[in-house]
């Protein structure tokens, strides 16, 4: 089912670009109907996303966690899974990193910070491996179970930060114990963007190479394309499914850990801001290709970053960026139906209907 969304080459790029342009056009018509000049809106969208140093930094900061949560969809998609549990895996990663950070108090930061990030990734990996195991061994649909897992993760977070691991010195909202400030990671030199961006881009590159260039990646795509063929070829299906899900979960867990060590310093409901759902959008816009995830995350991050400027310039509600993102998602999905229908993109020998 998701195999249809996985495609390569110029056809995918052309269809996606066309879909994004179509969505921008539809959004322009929508704002024109509400009485705003669409050309001015496009200009402000660009300025808010990429027009100044400040807006570029905001875009990059917003894109970083979304790249990682998008991998939580894109890597398992290779094996034919549709995982929507990025939000929950991010929360578990955040919780695990706080516990690791508190436990490591006193250790040198050069040792502690990597361990905190690994703990976060492990938390997310285990969290997503459970629904994958339930699917593999019990036939439980992974999309539904990961949706449930999101709610359970958020309830667990709320429970823990309002009691067992609550820092009662924080009066404003229930917040967990803080990790020692020495373990926090700073910003990339010369930019006011935290190191999470580097982790996000690196994770996407590694995922791309692993999925394209290794036997593991090849085995996954056989499995995702045809379960029967994978079984006939003697591939270790269960191990592949669990590994793909765990890798995806690890990416989203890392996003949660980065939110803790780079932004909040503790776990709270501030971790639940929709990065998981934005990741689903990005993964589909990127057609489950990890390299394209980087670009799609910059697009979605840029749209979110320009929300504030749209609000100030035109008095638009801040939901304007969500509307545009929804349009893009719908247009990209609809464009899947055009595969093989655009004559100029087909190989010479193929017949066109």
């Amino acid at each position, binding site marked *: *089912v*998701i195999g*249809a*969304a996985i495609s390569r080459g110029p056809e995918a790029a052309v269809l996606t670009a066309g879909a994004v342009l179509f969505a921008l056009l539809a959004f322009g018509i929508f704002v024109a109907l509400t009485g705003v000049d669409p050309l001015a809106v496009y200009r402000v969208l660009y300025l808010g996303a990429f027009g100044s140093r400040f807006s570029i930094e905001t875009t990059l900061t917003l894109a970083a966690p979304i790249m990682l949560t998008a991998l939580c969809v894109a890597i398992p998609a290779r094996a034919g899974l*549709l995982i*929507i549990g990025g939000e929950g895996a991010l929360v578990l990663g955040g919780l695990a990193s706080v516990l690791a950070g508190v436990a490591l108090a006193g250790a040198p930061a050069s040792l502690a910070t990597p361990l905190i990030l690994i703990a976060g990734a492990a938390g997310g990996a285990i969290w997503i491996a459970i629904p994958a195991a*339930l699917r*593999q*061994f*019990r*036939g*439980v*649909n992974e*999309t*539904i*179970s990961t*949706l*449930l*897992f999101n*709610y*359970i993760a958020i*309830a*667990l977070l*709320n*429970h823990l930060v*309002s*009691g067992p691991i609550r820092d009662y010195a924080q009066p404003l909202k229930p917040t967990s114990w803080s990790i020692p400030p020495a373990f926090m990671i700073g910003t990339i030199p010369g930019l006011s963007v935290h190191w999470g961006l580097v982790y996000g881009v690196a994770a996407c590159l590694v995922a791309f190479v692993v999925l394209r260039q290794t036997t593991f990646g090849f085995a996954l795509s056989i499995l995702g394309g045809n379960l029967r063929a994978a079984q006939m070829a003697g591939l270790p299906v269960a191990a592949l499914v669990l590994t793909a899900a765990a890798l995806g979960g690890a990416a989203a867990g890392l996003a949660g850990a980065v939110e803790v060590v780079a932004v909040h310093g503790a776990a709270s409901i501030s971790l639940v801001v929709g990065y998981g*759902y934005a990741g*689903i*959008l990005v993964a*589909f816009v990127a057609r489950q290709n990890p390299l394209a995830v980087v670009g799609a995350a910059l697009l979605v991050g840029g749209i979110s970053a320009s929300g504030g400027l749209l609000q100030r310039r035109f008095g*638009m*509600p*801040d*939901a*304007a*960026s*969500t*509307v545009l*993102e*929804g*349009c893009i*998602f*719908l247009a990209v*999905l*609809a464009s*899947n*139906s055009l*595969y093989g229908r655009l004559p100029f993109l087909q190989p010479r020998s193929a017949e066109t209907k």
Partner: protein
Amino acid sequence: MSIAEEIGSWSVVFAIVGSALRVSTPYLFVSLGETLTEKSGRINLGLEGTLMMGAMSGYAVSFSTGSPWLGVLGAGLTGAAFGLLHAGLCSLPRVNDIAVGIALFIFGTGLAAYLGKPLIHPVAPRLPDIDLGFWSSVPSLHAALQVNALLIIGILIAPAMLWILNNTRWGLKLRTVGDSADAARALGYSINGVRATATAIGGFFAGVGGAFLSLYYPGAWTEGLSSGQGLMAVTLVIFARWNPINCVFAALLFGGASALGPALQAIGIASNYYLYGAAPYVLTLVLLIRTSSTKHRLFGAPSELSINK
């Protein structure tokens, strides 16, 4: 124990019951709608967006016409339009219904927040109460039984929907399309047509569920109005095993579970507040694990459903 004390301890129970009845109405409508949609072989995971659009448009219509019932109708029609959008996209080749649902969830919540911005301050007429507790002189019981007409309507729709599914030509057609697209095609049914109708009606119900939120309880339009009732629709339907009557019980259970935490907190039991709130999700998960198998489809589920494949 004196009578007054006895009533005092019972009032907690009454509070939970009253709150469960109030909270469960949107659950009931989204689950009834989703049941019908899934019976036709499609999943609409985007009912959260539909619910928010219904809440916003219902409030807008009630505000501008002065009639909350016209608001409910407007909300239903908006929901049906979203259902048709879902059905239209899913009828295209190579378009996955679950992905379209997630996209409509994002699009609908965004659009509702955008268009609903001017509606945050005005006060629209709300739906009236029905006083089912008139016979009781116990104030807490009386208050618990102040219910909304939509709850009654929803409870009446459930057996009607079951009867229509089981005993009418259209119901048979819907079930055929949901259980075997090949058989339906052989019989000359329009698969996309039947599914579009079922998804539009499902969207109508979700829109009405949203109108309940904005026009009765909590009873005002805000962006954060829904606590995920629309996203839970799919879960409720699994819990109800695709049976409209069971949707009533599933909705009451989910409503009761979300009312339990606040009620216990009100009497001073504040620990594990959030864990009680997660109980329905854990229960659904346990139910899924117990009834799923790698060898056959989910018990009671329509065969054409993409979660079975």
